[in-house]
């Protein structure tokens, strides 16, 4: 397994007045064999980040590095990153059997080796035999993968239409594993499922991760779900990572007011609190990603920000991301712990190589 690193990654869509910076200078590391949970609301750019990682979207700047080597994607090549999608009803080809879908993701090179080795004697026969072997190998591999995700190997012949949502999601996971990924990316994989099924998929992801020592980026809008599977939690807001730290530490001692808000909104056993943090910003609208606020991007909603406390004018003008590295959990907030009070002077945005 390997380490995945996002280095100043930005993704922009469109041009001119309609331009949208979905991901804006994200630095994030997924250490080998660990799960990084990424939380944030819709439009925060978390799915775009995932799509950039697997090469479905081109980053407009920055780099994505696997074990220190920048990722390069070309059509038709095996990708070292695999992804599981949100909607299991759309992520499996309805015209292909489950087994074919999984087999397609099994790297071809592994089997072509078998053909090549035999090419010396009697080309025709060896080739045919090699292909035959390849088919057998592939079928065996598909069966193994299906069993790995808790489905019968015979399910390989079924079409997705015959499976339930939870079963489809298992197949999608098997397909992602078939690609022998160095890093697995799971994008909201439980949000389309009923609660009673959600648990089985989460349990599967956790046990697979532990068994296979997978490096994983686990994306969800649900903090409780992220908490359950992650070693590290990163919080994303309007295209930026606003706080990142070891899961327990971040949950016990959140620094960014947005993280605190997410924590307050997440369910806890037996609590019925709907109390707003502060009436001034309680009903604030989520910011428009086309026109992100200047200064701290969270300030229009911040319960400890300039709209509530008049002495915090600097939040309106100074972007807290610049000094994030010097704060606890790399928090993008001027008022997080470890923030030196001298850091109020304007700083230019950090540049990346």
């Amino acid at each position, binding site marked *: 397994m390997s380490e995945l690193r996002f280095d100043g990654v930005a993704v922009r869509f469109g041009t001119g*007045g*309609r331009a949208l910076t979905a991901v804006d200078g994200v630095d994030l590391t997924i250490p080998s064999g660990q799960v990084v949970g990424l939380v944030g609301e819709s439009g925060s750019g978390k799915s775009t980040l995932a799509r950039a990682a697997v090469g479905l979207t081109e980053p407009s700047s920055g780099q994505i590095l696997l074990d220190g080597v920048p990722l390069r994607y070309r059509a038709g090549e095996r990708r070292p990153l695999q992804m599981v999608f949100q909607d299991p009803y759309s992520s499996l080809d309805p015209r292909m059997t489950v087994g074919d879908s999984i087999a397609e993701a099994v790297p071809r090179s592994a089997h072509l080796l078998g053909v090549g080795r035999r090419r010396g004697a009697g080309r025709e026969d060896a080739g045919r035999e090699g292909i035959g072997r390849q088919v057998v190998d592939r079928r065996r591999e598909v069966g193994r993968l299906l069993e790995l995700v808790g489905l019968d190997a015979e399910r390989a012949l079924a079409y997705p239409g015959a499976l339930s949502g939870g079963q489809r999601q298992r197949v999608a996971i098997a397909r992602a594993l078939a690609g022998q990924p160095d890093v697995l990316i799971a994008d909201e994989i439980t949000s389309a499922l009923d609660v009673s099924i959600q648990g089985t998929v989460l349990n599967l992801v956790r046990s697979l991760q532990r068994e296979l020592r997978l490096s994983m980026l686990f994306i969800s809008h649900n903090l409780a779900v992220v908490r359950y599977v992650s070693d590290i939690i990163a919080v994303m807001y309007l295209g930026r990572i606003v706080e990142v730290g070891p899961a327990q530490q971040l949950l016990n001692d959140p620094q960014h007011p947005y993280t605190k808000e997410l924590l307050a909104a997440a369910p806890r056993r037996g609590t019925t609190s709907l109390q707003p943090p502060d009436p001034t910003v309680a009903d*604030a*609208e989520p910011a*428009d990603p086309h*026109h992100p*606020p200047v200064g701290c991007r969270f300030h*229009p909603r911040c319960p400890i920000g300039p*709209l509530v406390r008049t002495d915090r004018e600097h939040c309106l003008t100074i972007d807290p991301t610049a000094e994030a590295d010097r704060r606890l959990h790399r928090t993008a907030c001027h008022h997080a712990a470890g923030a030196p009070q001298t850091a109020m002077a304007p700083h230019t945005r950090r540049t990346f190589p």
Partner: protein
Amino acid sequence: MTTTVRVPGTTASFTSHPWVRFAVRRLARLVGSVLILISAAFLMIHLIPGDPVRSALGPAATKSLIDARRESLGLDDPLWQQYLHFLQHLFTGDLGTSITTGLPVSDVIRDRLPATVQLAVAAFLVAVLIALPVGLAMGVLTRAGRRPRTELSFTSTTVILAAIPEFLLAVGLVYFFAVKLHWLPVAGRGNMSSYVLPVISLAVGPAAVLARICRVELLAVLQTDYLRTARAKRLPAAAIYLRHALPNAVTATITLGGLLLGGMVAGTVLVENVFGWPGLGSTIVSSILAKDYPLVQGVVLVYGVGVLLVNLVVDVTLALLDPRSTIRES
């Protein structure tokens, strides 16, 4: 309460106003289409295998005559020069000279265009005035699988009507109403009664298609969440249909109606030939058969521009009716 919510249109500059953007984009597309049309019309003559002048003048023509014609048409110049000349002449309203008659093409078109436009516009109005009420009424009557028999007969009738090509319907109509019953004239363009058969033959097919589309669109609108909201407001049925269902169904219908109108412009070609209607349709066919290429070129241009204008009108109407459409364009 202080908010930093951005108001669309207030902080944005003039050029990012949706209407301005829409107009710019739409005009750019129109100009692009017209340029392609002009180039296609120009290239048409050059794509024809063999010498167009020889094939137009026939095998009996002498070499000197052909050379003279080629000279006068500028066919011996390099292609790009010919194209520039063509454009130049086009902008001065000069479409060249008809090979067979020697008359300026623009005169022929000016002479014949009104008859065709009258026919197309009349047929369009008739089609819309029949199709919209019928389609909407059918939608209301057959909503949520009600009256399956009515639905079946409506669907089969419209399928059959839409499958009858306009020239065939024209022949049939001529036979019954002119030849058999002597109610209406067989051909030609004269008083009001001479319009009846051509207009009907042109309007029936599109009307059938439009009525079906209209019904389907209405049914789709009746399934929407916002119609359920309207019902939850406990509005009377008439208000639900007239205020919420109808405008949205018609908006969707217009999009396809525009294509039909374009098709109708082309349909005049066949109908005019059946009725001997002195319009551009009969001109283009006779000029194709006579290999009178400058004339063909001119008429093709006029038809093409006509279709493009119809599409423009439809898009602008849609933008006016549907507040999302200027946004949706992008």
